[in-house]
């Protein structure tokens, strides 16, 4: 997993960077609620200089999916 991504996620979700992995799941997560999800996506866009579509934002369910989505954008850049 992109270590910088793990850092941004840890900061917004208020957990230790070590507690974020590709297996982290949105559903049932104590701080990854819908508002924090939007904050997280905005923070990632700012950090990496990318822009997600609304469909992409809505489709993300796990940190692994997010890592893959971001990886795709970064590879294309």
């Amino acid at each position: 997993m992109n270590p910088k991504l793990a850092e941004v996620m840890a900061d917004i979700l208020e957990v230790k960077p070590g507690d974020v992995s590709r297996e982290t799941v949105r559903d049932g997560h104590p701080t990854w609620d819908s508002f924090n999800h939007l904050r997280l996506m905005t923070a990632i866009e700012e950090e990496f200089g990318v822009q997600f579509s609304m469909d992409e934002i809505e489709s993300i369910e796990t940190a692994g999916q997010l890592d893959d989505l971001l990886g795709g954008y970064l590879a294309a850049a």
Partner: protein
Amino acid sequence: MTVDLRERLAQAHDRATLSAATTGLASGSLEPRLAERLARRLAELALPADFRVLLLGNHTLDPLARFTTAAAFCQNIVVAAEVGPFDQHMQVLLDPSLGLADQAPDAIFLSLELDRLLPALPHGLVQLDTTARSNLADEALAAVTSWVETAKSVTGATLLIGNFWRPVRSHLGLADLQLQGGEAALYATLNLRLLETFADDPKVHVVDLDHAVATAGRRAAESPRMRHMAKLAWAEPALPEIGDLLARYVAVLVRPPKKCLVLDLDNTLWGGVLGEEGPDGIRVGEGDPVAEAFSAFQRAIKGVQGRGVLLAIASKNNRADVEEAFRLHPEMPLGLADFAATRIDWQPKHQNIRAIAAELEIGTDSLVFVDDNPAECELVRQMLPEVEVVQLPRDPAAYAGLLLDLPSLERLVISAEDRRKTEQYREQAARAAVRVEAGDIETYLTSLETVVTIWPATRAELVRVQQLFAKTNQFNLTTKRYKLPEIERFLASPEWRLEVVAARDKFGDLGIIAVLLLELGGDTIRVDSLLMSCRAMGRGIETVVANRIKAIARSRRPKGRLVAEFRPTAKNKPAADYWRRQGFVLDVTEDDGTQRYTLTVAEAREIPCPAITVDQPLIEGEETLEPQAG
């Protein structure tokens, strides 16, 4: 610094640590991520709330709830902010299953986005004729007023009504301003009509969301993506500003207001040190940026005075120099006459501050002290921790904004009494001068030519009555802090009699200075509350009021009895002996110090007050049913 603060917030596990972590943090300066963290921390600690607010509206308000909680905590107030169901502001009032009664909010905030309230309105403007446009505007306004009317019938909460904020873009672009009744005109008209509609309603306050959004920056506040994905009206960058605005209302509603601003002179009111530069060398007025900054600060002080805050000077200077400085600078916005009390000498500041409080007959805990000197500020903080100390920054250009940002000097309404406050204190000083001349007290009291008017309170006096309940400390027999909803109930109920007392004398009008609240029971009349502003104390009006109580009792319960109590507090010693002096008999003193008194109405005797002319209506009511005894 921010990261450090985040760590400290994360580690805080009780209110004291959390307070320490946020000390010195102005609520408006909370950056969004910090505010989120603080709010979540507060939710985890589950501290008992000082104030409960319910947020209702037709857009997502959950983030605002957290920002409001965080901003209020920076003022050391714990707010429980609940968010009602989305777009069900009316249902919340009418459907008991939605839990309004359980939440028992102290305030309800309503925020309606115009686009969602009346989708036809902004977009259809160009197709509509003048009449149709104005009908739609009426409809938008009616949506708010009918909600307010319903809310008032089901809750006693203070109602905070957000006004309509303009989006960044208007659909007609530049032509919007050409079109009579374009979006610009529409928002301005609606917001003005909101102010006019609720101007005289003490329970409803219009919250200037449009201004807050503009202050944060309309572009930063607007995120179409957030709107479409989460129905968020405001993006994160605008939330600290709006949360801070709501927290300001909370602070005014929770805390007793500060009554007096005590100011230093050198490098506070003007630039430079008077004793060194001389009266003509200080910098204030026009023509030099530093001088203009001090003038702007003085104008801000004058504005605060207009809210009903008294001004005082505590300065280490020679008094003659200061008088000369004011004489030589008539262009200064403030003159010596603007100050209700001055202590210009070489005494330590904390002593002078205490003396100012004593002279104005207010508590030191109702003072705000402003000084540029860190040592003086520290001394006052240590010696008088109850005084709010504002240490000015190095740059005088920042002074005015700092003062106008202070939450403790906010008022929700400004009464006629507030507007005349300084004048009233000046008249007070003139009265004191007569007292010195007159020597014997009866001669003095007679020379004041006091006229007292007493009448049953009406809605017109509601704001002033509430203010007196909130602020009166010294002459307050039971110190019950009734809020508007309760006071309105007293007005409406035949079992309660609420009367107000106004006074004037040869120096001026003191306005409404006392409140009397009686509960009329079967054969007993209970004095629930009796309180009088300190500036009216000690001239015999106390006795006039007791006579009024006896007269009411005689006409309403001639064979009954009067009961009254004195509940001691830290501040109401001046009223301790009141009931005994008015002829009441002490029955019992309870463990908490409460003294209970009785007086049989048949034995009640008015005490003559020859120095005062009393103008009071006859007591209506049951005379015809129970003829007056004796």
